């Protein structure tokens, strides 16, 4: 079993989001970057699968050298090796093309991504990648078991769950609940130092989109406090003033 896990390097969830250069660039000053939380789940599940039935887990990232701490962390958590495609991740299309180019030469049985990157909230790389490789894709999975070359998964659907079975190879994208993330231990951190981290250059430079600017949401006008002993007024305000009920 050869599993590829796609890792996006994202700002920590507590980051206060600001922009520079006339609101055209995300301000990374003082920002801590982490492995995208969904990708961490995908990685852990991949390790659980290969630990049980044998195989290898490769972590892949499309990013510049500043993403290496997160990539190293995947090795410390347990990935066998890692690949960094040396480019600024422009958009989901670009990222998927780069990963597809690499995956074509390697024949992975299973490719896992996260449900979405928590920075750009695209949720698109998995589907794009699967189409580029000509293999099936199942998104927002909350469980995956593999037996005799067939994956059985549960995925979220609007208002419920769907059980899906699919012959390998395929691309699946991890939703919360897939598993619990693992914290690297000392042995893992030591071992990571000697594990291979390959840097490969980009193929092609198709551009499909460009982010031209950012904006922060307008600040709220301030909270209107309702005295506790007149709490029932809330319903009146929501009905007559806010007109939402």
């Amino acid at each position, binding site marked *: 079993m050869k599993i590829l896990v796609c890792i996006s390097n994202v700002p920590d969830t*507590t980051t206060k989001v600001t922009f520079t250069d006339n609101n055209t660039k995300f301000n990374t000053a003082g920002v801590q970057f982490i492995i995208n939380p969904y990708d961490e789940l995908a990685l852990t599940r991949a390790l659980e699968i290969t630990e049980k039935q044998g195989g290898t887990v490769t972590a892949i990232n499309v990013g510049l050298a500043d993403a290496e701490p997160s990539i190293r962390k995947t090795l410390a958590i347990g990935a066998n090796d890692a690949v960094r495609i040396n480019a600024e991740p422009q*958009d989901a299309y670009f990222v998927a093309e780069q990963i597809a180019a690499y995956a074509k030469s390697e024949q992975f049985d299973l490719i896992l991504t996260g449900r979405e990157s928590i920075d*750009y909230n695209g949720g698109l790389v998995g589907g794009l990648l699967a189409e580029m490789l000509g293999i099936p894709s199942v998104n927002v999975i909350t469980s995956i078991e593999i037996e005799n070359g067939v994956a059985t998964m549960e995925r979220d659907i*609007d208002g419920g*769950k769907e059980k899906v079975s*699919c012959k390998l190879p395929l691309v699946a994208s991890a939703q*919360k609940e897939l598993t619990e993330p693992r914290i690297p231990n000392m042995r893992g951190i030591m071992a990571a130092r000697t594990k291979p981290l390959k840097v490969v250059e980009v193929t092609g430079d198709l551009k499909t*989109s460009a982010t031209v600017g950012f904006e922060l949401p307008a600040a709220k006008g301030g909270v209107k406090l309702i005295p506790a002993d007149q709490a029932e*007024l*809330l319903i009146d305000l929501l009905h007559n003033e806010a007109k939402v009920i």
Partner: protein
Amino acid sequence: MILVYAESIDGNFKKSTFEAVSFAAGIAQTNGVHCVAVSIGHVEDAKLAELANYGADKVVAVNSSKLAAFNAEAYAKAFANVAAAEGATIVVVSNTYSGKAVAGRVAAKLKAGIASGVISIPNTSNGFVVRKTVFSGKAFADVNLTTAIKVLAITPNTFDTHTFGKTANLTTADGGLSDADFISNSVEISRVTGKIPLTEAELVVSAGRGMKGPEHWGIIEELAQVLGAATACSKPVSDMHWRPHSEHVGQTGITIKPNLYIAIGISGAIQHLAGVSSSKVIVAINKDPEAPFFKAADYGIVADAFDVLPKILEAAKKLKAAN
């Protein structure tokens, strides 16, 4: 020509589908082109005809027994084939789980630039720019799609539906599918019935660790039921299994954008707010006047939830009885 994916569930269109059709029809009208809606899987003709009311000039139904259950590869192929046959330049889908599963594959097939989580109509004064939410609602990004064909996954509950009152022009297409396009199989679907799915809800009543334990959720559920709202919760609440994971909202849970979000006994941590801050009206009920949620809220009550909830529930019942 603008093509829109008319997503259906068990043969029914959802409100988000009508929003997508109206969105597409609006752009088509501005550009003096046609809006074509594509339905995949079984939907009755009378329901297909409704899409014309929301703005579709033509409705293409792709249906076969194999398409009864959702399948990302087959649905995307059928949809992309119709897009190519109709000469679509803009493709619209709803930013739902299944909508996005199709959207990415369609974009790759059509070599189209794609934006998801779209919350604006395209601005074509300088390129083709759409606004989308990023950083889980903490900011917006303006994205210029530079390809000949563009795919937009639009956020539900963001655009109004419009009735265009067009007469339905129903056609069918076979989608160009073969057995090889059905590799993944839907084995079983379980939907929570009798409850409003959180992702579609316009009103949401949500509670956090301040509720002390799962045994106290009765009043939360009752308030939600009276208001016709869905229920949600904070991450620790679902982590402790007080509530199902499907109710967890926030940065690592579901991102929602209802008209009303009532947060009861939730502190308002940045990761929680990330998933709910785009709600139109926010109410915070918390006994701590310093709780960060009050900074993000439109209405607030500083009180013990156990004291004020019965009064609020009573008032909600009265309002509903009177209307």
